[in-house]
């Protein structure tokens, strides 16, 4: 009997050790990634990095030969990313939230189920397909790679995420909110706008921030829509760069390794910050809603 009990304790210890080991194995690549980005990227990040546009290959080559730091920065990429994200958010947020409300309010109905299904399919859509579709429909018809096309591509990749977040957030809200709003004589629209939306705000914001952080990392659809540009461009109908496009350009140009690392480290830190902010907002939101 005693030996059986010892055996159980032994098995238990093995199991715990295994769990710890696997957790560490999962964490390892992530830690290595951060270490590499910090080690190779941080040292090139200086003020010029944020205030100048990307260097030409010739400048980079000359700087490398002279053993100096590469002149220039990624301002064109930052501006391009912000510009395209703004377009994407303006297009996606109202549409996504309204669709999410529709899906939640009409759950179980045929048409809503169909949209729900299509949304789930789009959620996992390979981003190159989004890029190609936007290329054919926007770039071809406007005869130019453009910020607009890039923004539309980003918005298509964000839309399913925002729709899903809205629906999931509304599901989390206490069911009594709507009933008690209506019982006070509120109209349907009034209850949605004044009771449900404020209560859902934190959850929606979390979802939007997370999809923004995903969109910041989109590269493939932008290659075929926004193309990239070595200058800052505010013309909506002309090509522009983004941070991810710059990383791709730097990667394909000789002598620019340091820029690849620096841009990656910067982009990565923005994404981590966005996720942390999203998490914090999410926690505060749950506290307001359930007071726990």
């Amino acid at each position, binding site marked *: 009997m005693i030996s059986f009990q010892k055996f159980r304790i032994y098995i238990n210890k093995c199991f715990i050790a295994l769990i710890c080991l696997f957790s560490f194995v999962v964490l390892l690549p992530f830690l290595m990634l951060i270490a590499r980005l910090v080690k190779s990227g941080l040292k090139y990040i200086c003020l010029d990095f944020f205030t100048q546009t990307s260097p030409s290959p010739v400048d980079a080559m000359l700087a490398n030969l002279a053993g100096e730091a590469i002149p220039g920065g990624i301002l064109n990429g930052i501006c391009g990313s912000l510009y395209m994200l703004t377009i994407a958010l303006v297009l996606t947020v109202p549409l996504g939230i309204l669709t999410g409300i529709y899906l939640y309010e009409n759950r179980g109905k045929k048409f809503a189920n169909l949209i729900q299904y299509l949304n789930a399919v789009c959620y996992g859509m390979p981003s190159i397909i989004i890029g190609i579709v936007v290329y054919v429909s926007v770039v071809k018809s406007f005869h130019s790679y453009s910020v607009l096309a890039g923004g539309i591509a980003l918005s298509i990749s964000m839309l399913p995420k925002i729709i899903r977040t809205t629906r999931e957030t509304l599901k989390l809200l206490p069911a009594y909110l709507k009933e*008690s709003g209506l019982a006070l004589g*509120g109209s349907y629209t009034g209850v949605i706008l004044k009771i449900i939306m404020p209560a859902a705000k934190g959850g929606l914001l979390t979802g939007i921030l997370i999809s923004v952080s995903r969109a910041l990392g989109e590269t493939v659809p932008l290659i075929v829509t926004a193309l990239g540009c070595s200058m800052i461009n505010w013309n909506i109908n002309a090509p522009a760069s983004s941070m991810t496009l710059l990383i791709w350009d730097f990667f394909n140009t000789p002598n620019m390794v340091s820029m690849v690392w620096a841009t990656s480290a910067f982009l990565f830190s923005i994404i981590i910050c966005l996720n942390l902010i999203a998490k914090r907002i999410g926690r505060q939101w749950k506290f307001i809603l359930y007071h726990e």
Partner: protein
Amino acid sequence: MNKNHILELKSVSISYSPGSYALKNISVSIKPNAITSIIGASGSGKSALLRSINRMHELYPNIRMQGEILLGGKNIMEMNPVEVRRRIGLVFQQPNPFPTMNIYQNVLSGYKLNKIYLSKSEKDRIVEECLRNVSLWDEVKNGLNKNPLSLTVGQQQRLCIARTLALQPEFLLMDEPTSTVDMFCTNRIEELIYRLKNNHTILIVTHNLAQASRISDYALYLEKGELIEYDKSNIIFVAPNDKRTEKYITEQVE
């Protein structure tokens, strides 16, 4: 007596699915400025009856209602649901203050939802009056901007009653308003309900027969969706005319 303050049900039936009725052919005229309690076992249709009076049953598309509910002689199904719900307030079983509004805003939430704009002084007056009316003012007057969920359950329920009263409804429907609060709070809410009958007609669903007999002037006994007896409380609880009412009350008291 003001004709508008008369609530009448004419052969009201409610079904959740074809053929199965939650309420069968209920006809009753609710006495104004009095407390009427609706009693009966679980599943007898008490809540269905209460909710149909301010058209809350419409939120569930599979529920069908037949018959007429007349508010001041007008069929409520032909009125604007928003107006019906403004004139007939509903207090739920679970206290349900709006978590994104503070206490002050919660009391005024009905006005906000109905797009009625008030001056600051009017708002202050309504909030104080309503919170005093539910005896909550002294407990919260120094923290009107606090989250309502920081209050005790009993206080939250009184806040919800205040929120409903703020719109000055003629009728007040209460769905087991004291089932989630402790004895002390129950007493306070009962006192409050008793006081409110001067200005409101109150319908209260309760499982607690002692409570029903303490506060109500009239009682209405439902069994399996049928109206068995509707009379003065002192008759229903002391010497009911129908055997079934007598059986239910005796069983509950024992």
